[in-house]
């Protein structure tokens, strides 16, 4: 079965304002969907709608031709969401935070896979410090380490490169590239140019069409 994300006739509102309407596109395996748009054009709302946190005003989001909602557990297990907020507990350390996410994702608690995720992101030496004592960029990397826990088909990323230095940005882009190679798909917003990902696999969606 193809792991395809389909957005059909989607309309979202914030307050009383229509952010976008009649939005339709698909994200195929191996494809990166880059949402483009000015501040306030509804990028975050669209990502939260796709993840099922916000309900659309009209239209549907589907995954493998089934409704992509929070009650569809085969969908919620298939994606990893890294939003604006990192979702980390400030008084716990990186390892404790990631072990909690392992349980949340229904994975077996394994400190090895936490270690390897932290090593991949070159942050393992900071794993015993509480999140409060880490820089914004380091916190961001630990949030992104969630992507490497277990396997997932769709990455939903809201400004993943915020606070990251150039080396870390390249690192994350390489991980994205690997994910696309393994027939994974990605939908993201970013104001940083994607330099390491072949433009053939990038699909740009413009949100401010008016």
């Amino acid at each position, binding site marked *: 079965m193809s792991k395809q994300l389909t957005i059909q006739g989607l309309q979202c509102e914030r307050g009383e304002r229509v952010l976008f309407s009649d939005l339709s596109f698909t994200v195929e395996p191996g494809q990166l969907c880059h949402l483009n748009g000015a501040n306030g054009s509804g990028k975050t709302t669209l990502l939260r709608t796709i993840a099922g946190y916000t309900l659309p005003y009209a239209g549907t989001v589907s995954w493998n031709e089934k409704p992509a909602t929070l009650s569809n557990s085969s969908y919620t297990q298939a994606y990893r969401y890294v939003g604006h907020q990192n*979702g*980390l507990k400030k008084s716990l350390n990186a390892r404790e935070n990631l072990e909690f996410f392992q349980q949340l994702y229904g994975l077996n608690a394994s400190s090895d896979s936490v270690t390897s995720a932290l090593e991949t992101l070159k942050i393992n030496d900071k794993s015993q410090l509480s999140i409060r004592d880490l820089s914004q960029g380091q916190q961001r990397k630990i949030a992104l380490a969630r992507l490497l826990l277990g396997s997932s088909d769709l990455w939903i990323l809201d400004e993943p490169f915020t606070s990251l230095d150039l080396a870390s940005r390249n690192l994350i882009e390489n991980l994205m590239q690997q994910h696309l190679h393994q027939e994974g798909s990605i939908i993201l917003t970013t104001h940083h140019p994607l330099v390491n990902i072949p433009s053939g696999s990038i699909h740009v969606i413009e949100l401010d069409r008016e």
Partner: protein
Amino acid sequence: MLKRDLLLAVRNYNDVLIGLFFFIVVVALIPISLNESTQILPRLAPGLVWIAALLSSILSLARLFEEDHADGSLDLILSSGSVYQCVLAKVAAHWLVTGLPLTLISPLIGLAYNLHGEQLSTLFMSLLVGTPVLSCIGAIGAALTTGLRSGSSIIALIVLPLNIPVMVYGAAAVRSSINSPDNVMTYLLLLTAMLIIAVVFAPIATAAALKISND
């Protein structure tokens, strides 16, 4: 989840102590302010201790989901497929750090209110069975108000009326241990029935409310 919340409570132990001290201060202030003779205290004790327990439980409810909402981890909990278990674990952690300590010191409070033997154990038992219900019902209110600016004051308005039955039976159990000890078991069993219903159904309502609040 339970482990995480308890770990958080240990790291932020101030929050836990505030609830407990609030309870102690309220029950200690009332006899001082009333300046009544020790004869009347046992009659006041059931109601007062239960009201203080209720207020102390509500005091910490605002933080139940607010922090998870603010730091974004609520999103991840809601899409985890184990929302029910997570909510149950959070409620259990809330009770373990608010209801349980208060229950454990209640015999001391009872002694201060001139209660004896059987009455002390009834006070303890009624709080042991009743305070988890307060946490369960409170969680629904906390979930409904998560993300609202004036959430914490609205929680009290939602939760206080819903907790009246628990308070009535909890206080009645203690009162009957003073007046008619035969009825104590009836009230305690009623409280237990409430506890079972609350544990089974409140997390469902809480999870549904969280999905709405976390828009």
